[in-house]
């Protein structure tokens, strides 16, 4: 039979495809924990969970887009612009609850635009979202004039639903992050829609032939990605109480890296919510750990770059064994 002899072995790996993530996480905690025991303190772990949540909410959304076979580079700009819209509306007398709905509707709506332009315009999503990334960042700069926007007191309550404190130091964003992880796992693995997402990313022509409208599926994942980025932005707003116009710059790099660490294939059709969860925690603890050992700030960026390439190479090798091409 012409079956791949490596089949069963790879499948075993894939059933626990998050094993790579778990091992990396243990390694990071081990290394940083030894270099600076403060790393493992409860307070620090809470900090890591908060940072992981803010990145992770974005990663969850972008992960879905990648599984559907596309890229969303605009998430960083939406991460900044959504809380800005929320703040400006609230500052100008719009009730906070309405302001947040409008802001999130914007986040979702621009995602739909990304999706329609990409699928109907037949432009690579990389290009579409590179364009919208720049466009919305331009809007951020224009609207803020380059100055930070403060969280208005009228908006505090609503913002804190997403990112406020509870308990000693934990933030709601961590719970949202865990909740969404389970939700996305459920969607991907246990719903028809999830099957359609995997098919649209794995082979859109086949999906179309079988009656799945891949353009609609992809557009919906862009919408979700935008929404998640907006949500994450508001949660972060609750923590910092200001939005700097440079907020979210290069967040897309981190989110994509986190998804790829989690096993999501860059070419689409394959990915995991729990993998994205782990990937986000890994990057957050890496960032935190480097700070704690006194490493220069740019080390994080360099590491993320290396990890992205290494993780993608490793995923490709797995895919080669999977699909043989």
């Amino acid at each position: 039979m012409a079956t791949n002899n490596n089949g069963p072995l790879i499948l075993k790996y894939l059933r626990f495809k998050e094993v790579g993530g778990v091992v990396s996480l243990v390694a990071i905690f081990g290394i940083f924990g030894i270099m600076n025991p403060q790393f493992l303190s409860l307070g620090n772990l809470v900090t890591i969970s908060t940072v992981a949540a803010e990145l992770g909410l974005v990663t969850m959304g972008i992960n879905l887009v990648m599984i559907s076979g596309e890229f969303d580079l605009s998430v960083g700009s939406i991460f900044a612009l959504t809380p800005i819209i929320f703040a400006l509306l609230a500052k100008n007398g719009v009730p906070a609850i309405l302001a947040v709905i409008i802001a999130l509707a914007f986040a979702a709506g621009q995602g739909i635009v990304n999706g329609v332009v990409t699928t109907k315009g037949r432009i690579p999503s990389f290009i579409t979202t590179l364009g919208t990334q720049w466009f919305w960042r331009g809007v951020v700069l224009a609207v803020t004039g380059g100055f930070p926007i403060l969280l208005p007191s009228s908006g505090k309550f609503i913002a804190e639903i997403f990112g406020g404190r509870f308990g000693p130091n934990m933030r709601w964003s961590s719970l949202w992050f865990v909740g969404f992880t389970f939700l996305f796992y459920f969607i991907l693995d246990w719903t028809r829609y999830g099957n359609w997402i995997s098919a649209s990313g794995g082979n859109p022509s086949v999906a179309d032939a079988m009656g799945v409208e891949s353009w609609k599926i992809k557009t919906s994942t862009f919408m979700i990605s935008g929404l998640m980025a907006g949500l994450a932005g508001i949660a972060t707003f609750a923590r910092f109480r200001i939005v700097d116009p440079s907020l979210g710059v290069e967040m897309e790099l981190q989110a994509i890296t986190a998804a790829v660490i989690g096993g999501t294939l860059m070419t689409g059709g394959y990915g995991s919510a729990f993998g994205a969860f782990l990937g986000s925690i890994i990057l957050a603890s890496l960032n935190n750990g480097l700070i704690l050992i006194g490493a220069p700030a740019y080390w994080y960026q360099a590491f993320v770059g290396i990890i992205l390439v290494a993780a993608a190479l490793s995923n490709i090798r797995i895919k080669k064994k999977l699909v043989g091409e």
Partner: protein
Amino acid sequence: MSLLEAKGIKKSFGAVDALKGVDFRVEEGEVVGLLGDNGAGKSTLIKIIAGYYHHDEGHIFFDGKEVNFNTPRDSHNAGIEVVYQDLALVGLMPVWRNFFLGREVCKKVGPLKILNKHEMRNVSRQGLRGLGIEIPSVDQAVAFLSGGQRQTVAVGRGVHFGAKLLILDEPTAAVSVRETEAILSLIERVSEKGISVVLVAHNIYHVYRVATRFVVLDHGEKVADVSKDEVTPEDLIKIIAPPLN
């Protein structure tokens, strides 16, 4: 009344006339071998029937009604299943998910509709049993399967969901010798169920084994439409590639 009747099909790609007015007919339960040398227009005709292309001129009737397939989805809904290896299945997904793609079986759990994985695994296992090629596990990603196994999954799916016409393009290419026999038997068995099959292939002997009628295209025109008792494989070869004198 024929199951499929295509009349006067013309299709051009820019300056190239791929089909110059072809009539093509398939009866219920027939296995028609669509033959011709490279560039004859077989692939174009097949893709028009399957809805991937749209004909420039001509009419197509399926199941008695005139049809206008704009997308593969339209022909799929009408009961035409394409069994090209890479146009039928998503490699990264397991067999059972492919089997039910677009037609997933769900069960209600409270207000939610979730996939009935148990049912889909069982049904796909059943549907692929006894087709001649063993599919060891429906949980295996399709990319792990051999060419013959993939065809079996695509054919089995088509049969299970009531396809009326299966289109196979070079089903025995890239398939092991042992599996070739199984695939040809599968085609025979499928047509015994009353499902029509259009078989595009280069290997005359393979096609001759299972087909009941042969249509030969040459440079976009139909040059022969004969039943099996009228020709031998060697006759067909001579029609497709007339000997140079």
